[in-house]
């Protein structure tokens, strides 16, 4: 085996062991994240069951076009991420760098669209509180509280992902990775895909309730 850029750490006996530990650690972290978002999904399910009508009415005020575009952006960013990991596996530093940058750019685009959407939501009086849009039942505010929290926490995760992948891109630039050692890229990728998966569920839950009735 080529001497990897980052040496074997003291506590491990061999590289595969170290890599398996890191990957398994990442999956454990993602399991934690599932439950972290789980508390929000639980709240959502509870109230949607209790107030189906109010949730449908409230959800009609979300901006479907932005939501759909953002879903497409994140799905595409997952593709570039997967390709980045593949490039790393093939020791192709140049393409690794390019795909990572592409993923970061998609992430930034996602946040941009989300920002536009937030701007419009606020202009639309959809921020819960005393100035909340009139004409909606009180329970509709719960939908919007959840909308802001869920998309907000998700956006925070996207931001963390962007920072993480930017660091990876810089490291790739400096030739830190090779086919023998690319665990950080792989794990950042797992994180990025996870963020994508969360959005895959947020999209129908927040944007697609009873659309046909709108």
């Amino acid at each position, binding site marked *: 085996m080529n001497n990897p850029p980052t040496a074997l750490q003291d*506590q491990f006996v061999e590289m595969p062991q170290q890599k398996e*530990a890191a990957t*398994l650690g990442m999956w454990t972290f993602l399991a*934690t*994240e599932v439950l972290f978002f789980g508390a929000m999904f639980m709240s959502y399910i509870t109230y949607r069951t209790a107030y189906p009508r109010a949730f449908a009415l409230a959800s009609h005020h979300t901006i479907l076009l932005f939501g759909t575009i953002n879903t497409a952006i994140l799905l595409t960013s997952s593709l570039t991420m997967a390709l980045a990991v593949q490039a790393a596996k093939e020791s192709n530093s140049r393409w690794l760098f390019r795909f990572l940058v592409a993923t970061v750019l998609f992430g930034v685009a996602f946040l941009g669209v989300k920002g536009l959407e937030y701007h419009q939501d606020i202009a639309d009086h959809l921020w819960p509180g005393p100035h909340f849009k009139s004409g909606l039942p009180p329970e509709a505010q719960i939908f919007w*509280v959840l909308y802001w929290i869920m998309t907000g926490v998700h956006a925070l995760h996207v931001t963390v992902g962007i920072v993480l992948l930017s660091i990876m891109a810089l490291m790739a630039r400096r030739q830190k990775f090779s086919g023998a050692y690319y665990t950080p890229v792989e794990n950042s990728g797992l994180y990025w895909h996870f963020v994508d998966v969360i959005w895959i569920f947020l999209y129908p839950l927040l944007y697609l309730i009873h659309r046909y009735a709108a």
Partner: protein
Amino acid sequence: MNTTVESSEIFVPAREPKTYLTEGRTLKSWLLTTDHKRIGLLYLYSLLVYFTIAAIAAALMRLELITPAGDMVTSETYNKLFTIHGTLMVWFFLIPSIPAVLGNFVIPMMIGARDVAFPRLNLLSWYIFNIGGSLALYSVLFGGVDTGWTFYTPYSSTYANSHVIAMAAGIFIAGFGTILTGLNFIITIHKLRAPGMTWFRMPLFLWSMYSTSVIMVLATPVLAMTLALMSIERIWGVGVFDPKLGGDPVLFQHLFWFYSHPAVYIMILPGMGVVSELITCFSRKQIFGYHFVAFASVAIAVLGFLVWGHHMFVAGESIYAGIVFSFLSYMVSVPSAIKVFNWTMTLYRGSISFETPMLYALGFIGLFTVGGLTGLFLAAVGLDVHVTDTYFVVAHFHYIMVGGMVTAFMGGLHYWWPKITGRMYPEKLGQLAALIMYIGFNLTFFPQFILGYLGMPRRYHAYAPEFQIYNVMSSAGASILGVGYLLPLIYFIWSLKHGKKAPANPWNATGLEWQTTSPPPKHNFKETPVVTGPPYQYSAEETEIALHKPAKEQRAAS
């Protein structure tokens, strides 16, 4: 354990070998250490701070409760005292106690590893934990919190006038420390076991720590998000639990207890693991029913997630859900019962000696059994209607958490003290302290069962006069208990300088951690040990030889 270890046998006393303690003596070498043993000690120091504050709060509460009138402190202060006691004890002492201190110290050694899987992450956990702790202390020092450790909405989110956000943020942050510790242990146990250390050759402490880690990883994030939702509601005035919008405060309780009930098992499973180590070692017996004890830990961790609704029988939960949760609660007590029976059978035909750790282990069995049995009272949903939210509950969980976890923690600390420090603690004083603690504990908390059945609600600053007699007993017991805690603190510190030098294996125990020097070198073992057999290969018939006891006692024995 049948092991082939070269290092411990070739012990060269001529030149003082470097230990993990002497490997760098600067403050920086401690604050930037990635050595799991040093991190364990860092946790021990910080826990001592949180424990002391929480214990002082408890002492003040017990003082206040000597008389029925609320005459010593105001009700506002009293409410802050029990909140400080609860939050600090639960999140900043009990949850990290055995896992972060003893777990960090012994897990890698027990599996024959050089360190945990992610040593830097381990250090980061300690910092995260203490950042959370500092926020909690900030909220304590600058006004306190008065929500109780349960943070029930809408009181916490709307009505409380205290530093709720700082405390919630502290717990939120410290929670990530716990998650990362759990993650680290899971991966360590999966990936770093020494050659030959199969799952069923692992000491039971590891099984219990593995189960604990699973709970830490899967339950803690829910608490974090729940407290975040509560804080958001408090900050912006609208939220998901707000009854004015149609929100349901009971949902907060569901989410809170989805974490907090399993968290109770974070606070007892490690104790069970320690006790399995102690009982076998001091009765020179292989554990009875190894597989059952091991799987009981896993069963408790999994079933522990299915029972949280028993905290909410009268909270407005549907009666059908109450009945389901009642049944599941009874089922989770089965594996605990199995463990107690197995420990009992382990003593059969053993060769039992009564060093301090063993006294704590026996104390654990007694107190845990009482705590567990009173759990059956609370799981009986019809009876719970009467005793929930009374002192009966207070007594019950103190029997589990203090009688169980803290007793086991003390037992474990005494047991591994020679390994940690290289010094022996004074045995006679240790035995005395264990006895004092046992008496003090029972006097403090047993009367509270009766108080609870009489109907004294918890979190009462002033109470009806007929409850006084039991409160006085309880407060008297608390002062004895206090002595029981102070004594070890004093002699532990004393032993650092003046304690007898500890041999590598003072208890003649079989765990891998005893196969290296006391204190161990930086990476634990000079050579990676190879495991060839099951754990706890003790023999009750060969105990008269090679014990650490003074020659006089050995002679008397033979």
